[in-house]
C-alpha cells in the first residue's frame, strides 16, 4: 500500500511584491483570477490530513497577498496539519502576524537576500531589508518559532562571513542556507547565479564552522549546489513519494517545476480527489519507483538513494526527462554541466549580470 504524502506545498498565489532573480516559480505565472478559492484550499487541507500528511508549507509567490490567509491557516490547523508560512515578510504588520498566530501558525520562515540593502535590492528588485528586520522584532516579541532563510549564489557568496554573522544575530531557532537551484527564474538567470568552485569550497568550510559555533543554539540546514556534486540530489525524496505541490490554480504536481515536462498531464484538485491524484494520476505515477529508469540508473547501486536525481533537470539540461540527472558523474551527459562550470570560472566576477527579474502575474 502506497503511503500518502508527508507534506503539502501550497502555492496559494503567484503574486509577490518582490522580483527575486532566483525565484523557483515557473516563468508562466498563474493569474489572480485563476487562483483556487478559500473553500477549495480548505477542502485540500482536509483531504491532505486524511491522507496522513503532517505538514503544510504555505508559500507562493507571497502567501501574504492572499487576504484570506488567516482562514487558510485556520483550516489547515483545524485539519491537524503543522503550518509553516514561507514568506518574504512583505507586507506583514505585527497585528496581522498576531492574527495568523491565533489562527494556528506553527512556524514562520523568513527569507533574506543579503545582509546589506544595496545587494538585497539588486537581487529582490526592491528594497525590503528594513521591513524584514522590523518583522524579526515582532516575531521575537510574539515568541514565534522562526527560521531565517538565506539563498546564496555567485553574487552574494563573497559576503558569506558577514551574512552568517548577520543571520545568527537575528537569533532564529533554525537557519537554512540554500544554494540556488536552477529552475524557473533561477534557470533564466543561471549564468549570473552559478557560484565558482572556490566560492563553493569556502562556503562549505564557513557553514561547517557556523554549525559548530551555533550547536545547541541554532539548527543549521545547508542545501548544496548540485551542479558541483558527484551524485544528484534525491529530488523531493523521490517522485510522488513524499511531497505534493499544489499550484495557485489547483494543479497537483510532484515538484515545483514539473509542469515544464512535455507530454505529462497533471490533474487539478478542482476535478479530482487528492487520494486519486496521489495514487492513480498519470502525473504522479510516471516517475514513481524505478520502472521508468534508463541506463546508467536502471542498474545503478545508488538508484534507491537518489532515485536518478531530478527529472526536470534531466529535461532542461539533457533534453530527456527519463535520463540520469546530468549532474551525476555517471551520467553520459555530465560534460554539459562541466562545460557550464568552466564558463563560470572564466566570467569576470566584477561584472554585474544582466538580470531577468521575475514579473508579477496579471
Amino acid at each position: 500500500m502506497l503511503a500518502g504524502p508527508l507534506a503539502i506545498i501550497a502555492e496559494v498565489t503567484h503574486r509577490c511584491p518582490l522580483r527575486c532573480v532566483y525565484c523557483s516559480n515557473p516563468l508562466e505565472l498563474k493569474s489572480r483570477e485563476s487562483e483556487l478559492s478559500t473553500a477549495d484550499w480548505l477542502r485540500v487541507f482536509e483531504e491532505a490530513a486524511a491522507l496522513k500528511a503532517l505538514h503544510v508549507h504555505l508559500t507562493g509567490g507571497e502567501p501574504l497577498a492572499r487576504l484570506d490567509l488567516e482562514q487558510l491557516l485556520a483550516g489547515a490547523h483545524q485539519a491537524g496539519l503543522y503550518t509553516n508560512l514561507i514568506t518574504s515578510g512583505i507586507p506583514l504588520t505585527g497585528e496581522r502576524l498576531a492574527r495568523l498566530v491565533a489562527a494556528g501558525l506553527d512556524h514562520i520562515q523568513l527569507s533574506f537576500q543579503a545582509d546589506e540593502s544595496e545587494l538585497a535590492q539588486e537581487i529582490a528588485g526592491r528594497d525590503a531589508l528594513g521591513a524584514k528586520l522590523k518583522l524579526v522584532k515582532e516575531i521575537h516579541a510574539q515568541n514565534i518559532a522562526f527560521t531565517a532563510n538565506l539563498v546564496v549564489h555567485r553574487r552574494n557568496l563573497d559576503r558569506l562571513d558577514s551574512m552568517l554573522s548577520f543571520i545568527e544575530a537575528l537569533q532564529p531557532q533554525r537557519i537554512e542556507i540554500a544554494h540556488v537551484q536552477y529552475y524557473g527564474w533561477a534557470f533564466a538567470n543561471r549564468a549570473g547565479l552559478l557560484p565558482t568552485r572556490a566560492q563553493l569550497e569556502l562556503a562549505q568550510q564557513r557553514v561547517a564552522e557556523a554549525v559548530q559555533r551555533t550547536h545547541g543554539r541554532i539548527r543549521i540546514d545547508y542545501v548544496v549546489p548540485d551542479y558541483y556534486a558527484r551524485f544528484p540530489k534525491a529530488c523531493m525524496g523521490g517522485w510522488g513519494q513524499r511531497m505534493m505541490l499544489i499550484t495557485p490554480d489547483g494543479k497537483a504536481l510532484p515538484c515545483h517545476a514539473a509542469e515544464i515536462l512535455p507530454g505529462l498531464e497533471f490533474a487539478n484538485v478542482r476535478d479530482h480527489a487528492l487520494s486519486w491524484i496521489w495514487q492513480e494520476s498519470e502525473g504522479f505515477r510516471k516517475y514513481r519507483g524505478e520502472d521508468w529508469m534508463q541506463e546508467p540508473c536502471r542498474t545503478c547501486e545508488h538508484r534507491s538513494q537518489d532515485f536518478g536525481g531530478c527529472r526536470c533537470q534531466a529535461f532542461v539540461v539533457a533534453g530527456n526527462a527519463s535520463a540520469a540527472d546530468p549532474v551525476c558523474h555517471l551520467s553520459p551527459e555530465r560534460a554539459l554541466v562541466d562545460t557550464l562550470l568552466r564558463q563560470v570560472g572564466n566570467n569576470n566576477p566584477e561584472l554585474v549580470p544582466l538580470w531577468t527579474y521575475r514579473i508579477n502575474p496579471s
Partner: protein
Amino acid sequence: MPQPAPESQPRLSLGCRITMRQDVATLLYPEGAIRLQGTALRIVQLCDGVCSFQGIVTQLAHEYSADADRIQTEASAFLERLQAKRIIDF
C-alpha cells in the same frame, strides 16, 4: 552542548508539538517529524518545562522499574540529540 543538568527543566522548543492520530504519536517540528513510542514518547511527554531532569529520571525509573543510573544516561543522550535539533530546550 552539555547534557541536561539535574535541576534543568526540559521543555519542547518553540514550534514543536506532539500530535496524536489513530493512537500514533508524532513529534512535529519545523521541516520534520519523528514518530514516538515507548520510553521516548514518555520522556518527551514529561518535558513540560516544570518537572526537573532529575524528576523525569526518578519518574521513569519508577514507571519502568528500572535502574535510575541507566535511565539517566539514556534519557540524557536522547535529550541532547533533540536539543541539537532545537526540538527540546533545557
